[in-house]
């Protein structure tokens, strides 16, 4: 009898000691569907980060230590499902902040939700300007992002093409029903022409397409100096192969849809010497610790999204620590004044809730590697 009482007492004490405070952070993204590769990479990364934090006893906020619990849901790359899971995160799981939203098509519809519920959201790679700034100019108070936006990216790409690579005539091959692709190509074209260049051909294909020969033949006939392909790695690899087969030997330039382990293995030699803009140098020294840890834990290379969501979650933790609170309202306020160095560069949140003057990195494909060339930060 005494023994049982003792053990009950002991376990109660032990339980209450270990019943440390937990802070719940939500994540949503495409674990299934076309973008599953990136969604799965993101979830794996935030889980890895949570484990790291908790191994050190949790994150220190305002004198207290909090264990981090990640609640992640699959939005299947679908806008309706995104709204559904974010509601679940906010109302059922009662998270204090959300990271993820790798697709602008999923980030945009949840903006009104987080604004109304007053839970801050930090998007990882949603680059469409409308994610943070609405059509009428108002800013979504509770939405932030860790990445640069498409207008910025387009400007940088045009700058590299025109001023650094000294190309005068550009052709563009874009995915007509993907707003990322059309947006990026539109911004590229504007900047390129403002810098004195000329866009001699603008052709498109629909997503899911595997045969690019018809639009590529048109590009060949226009004889450009450089071809800008603002699309995802899968389409790029195919298009590059087919372009080379058609006898198109011009340099290809791309955006942040390119970087992936699979890009070079799918494209073979067709992308040799080609360049693209990235949010960071994935093979560089700043990313190395995270890259190694990810590889050790999961056995494969981290994707671009891993680094971006790493910074998104770091932004949230940083905000909590500066605000000395885990209350959503306080986190949101602190996020507006974010200014720190993440694995993807300097993140200084401006009045649009976008990082201002974030560096864009020009990467060249040399053999099986992606080699950093130079970086560029706009005013």
């Amino acid at each position, binding site marked *: 009898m005494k023994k049982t009482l003792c053990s009950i007492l002991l376990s109660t004490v032990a339980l209450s000691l270990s019943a440390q405070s937990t802070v719940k952070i939500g994540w949503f993204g495409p674990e299934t569907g076309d973008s599953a590769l990136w969604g799965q990479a993101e979830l794996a990364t935030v889980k890895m980060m949570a484990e790291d934090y908790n191994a050190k006893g949790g994150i220190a906020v305002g004198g207290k230590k909090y264990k981090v619990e990640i609640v992640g849901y699959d939005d299947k790359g679908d806008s309706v499902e995104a709204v559904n899971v974010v*509601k679940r995160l906010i109302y059922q799981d009662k998270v204090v902040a959300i990271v993820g939203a790798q697709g602008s098509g999923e980030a945009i519809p949840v903006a009104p939700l987080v604004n109304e519920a007053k839970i801050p959201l930090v998007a990882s790679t949603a680059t469409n300007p409308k994610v943070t700034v609405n059509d009428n100019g108002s800013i979504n108070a509770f939405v932030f992002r860790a990445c640069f936006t498409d207008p910025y990216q387009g400007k940088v790409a045009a700058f590299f093409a025109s001023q650094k690579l000294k190309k005068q005539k550009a052709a563009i091959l874009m995915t007509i029903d993907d707003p990322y692709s059309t947006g990026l190509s539109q911004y590229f074209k504007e900047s390129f022409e403002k810098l004195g260049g000329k866009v001699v051909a603008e052709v498109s294909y629909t997503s899911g397409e595997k045969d690019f020969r018809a639009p590529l033949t048109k590009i060949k006939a226009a004889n450009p100096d450089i071809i800008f392909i603002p699309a995802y790695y899968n389409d790029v690899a195919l298009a590059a192969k087919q372009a080379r087969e058609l006898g198109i030997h011009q340099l290809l330039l791309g955006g942040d849809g390119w970087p992936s382990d699979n890009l070079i293995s799918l494209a073979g030699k067709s992308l040799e010497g080609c360049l693209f803009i990235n949010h960071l140098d994935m093979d560089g020294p700043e990313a190395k610790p995270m890259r190694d840890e990810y590889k050790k834990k999961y056995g494969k290379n981290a994707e671009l999204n891993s680094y971006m969501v790493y910074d998104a979650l770091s932004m949230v933790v940083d905000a909590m620590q500066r605000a000395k609170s885990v209350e959503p309202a306080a986190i949101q306020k602190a996020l507006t004044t974010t200014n720190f160095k993440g694995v993807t560069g300097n993140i200084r949140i401006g009045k649009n809730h976008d990082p201002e003057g974030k560096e864009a990195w020009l990467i060249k494909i040399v053999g099986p590697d992606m080699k950093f060339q130079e970086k560029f930060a706009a005013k």
Partner: protein
Amino acid sequence: MDYIQGIAVLIGINLIAVLGLSILTGFTGLFSFGHGGFMAIGAYVSAIVSSRLDLPHPIAFPLAILAGALSAALISVFIGKLTLNLKGDYFCIATMGFGEAVRIILNNVNYVGGARGWANLPQFTTWWIVLGLCIVCVVVTWNLINSRQGRNLVAVREEELAAQMAGVDVFRSKMVALIVSAALAGIAGALMANYIQFLRPTMFNMAKSTDLTIMVIFGGLGSISGTIAGTILLVSLPEVFRNFAQWRLVIYGLAVIVIMVGRPQGIMGGVELTPSGIRKIFAARRAKAKLDAELKAAEQGEVA
């Protein structure tokens, strides 16, 4: 509106669309791969009416829903004229083409946002509106099926040639089914637009059309209560089984085959959950029990 209410709204919206599809597929025997297209039309037209035209608040939404339903119905008349005279498979392929065509066209119309989508639509859809409309639609569907027109539809499904000889205007019956199903899909689309507050053509692609059809099949072709049960099940189950998300469609595909081969009446078994339906079940059971007892008595009588 919180999470649970959100799920309820989604069930309601899908139910309205699926009721329409049930009339077309379950009761009239026409298989459509393109009802996502009608939902899209309803959604976009309703969005235009509720956001682009500056109408005063109380009448904006009902008007928008009406506009959505009417435009979907109108387009269905056009499509119906072209395709309803064709054989079953041709109709399927044509509806598939229609659904995709709507999506492609919408992708290219910048006035409604094109491929990048249309954000910040007003939040008009409330749980009560959805519930109310659901009830209305169920009642309408019920009345349609149990009317003479409804029996005509079933006749067309069962044996088209015989129905025609019996005096049923086959083309007109099919057209009625198509129009009603399109209108209902249009209403569902309108509600969806003002719930998600965001529209994008991919929301209504072939996957959506297929989802709707699967809901009809699960519930059982030819049963309204089945349709309701099937929809509730298929919209809420994925929430419960989130861990198995990857296998959801695998299971659905297999289930469709098994249902079609084994039990086409679906969950409800072709029985309607109404007082008379329930009475019928009990009556059948009593009759069977009586028959078994009589057989047994006869056997014993013989032995004895």
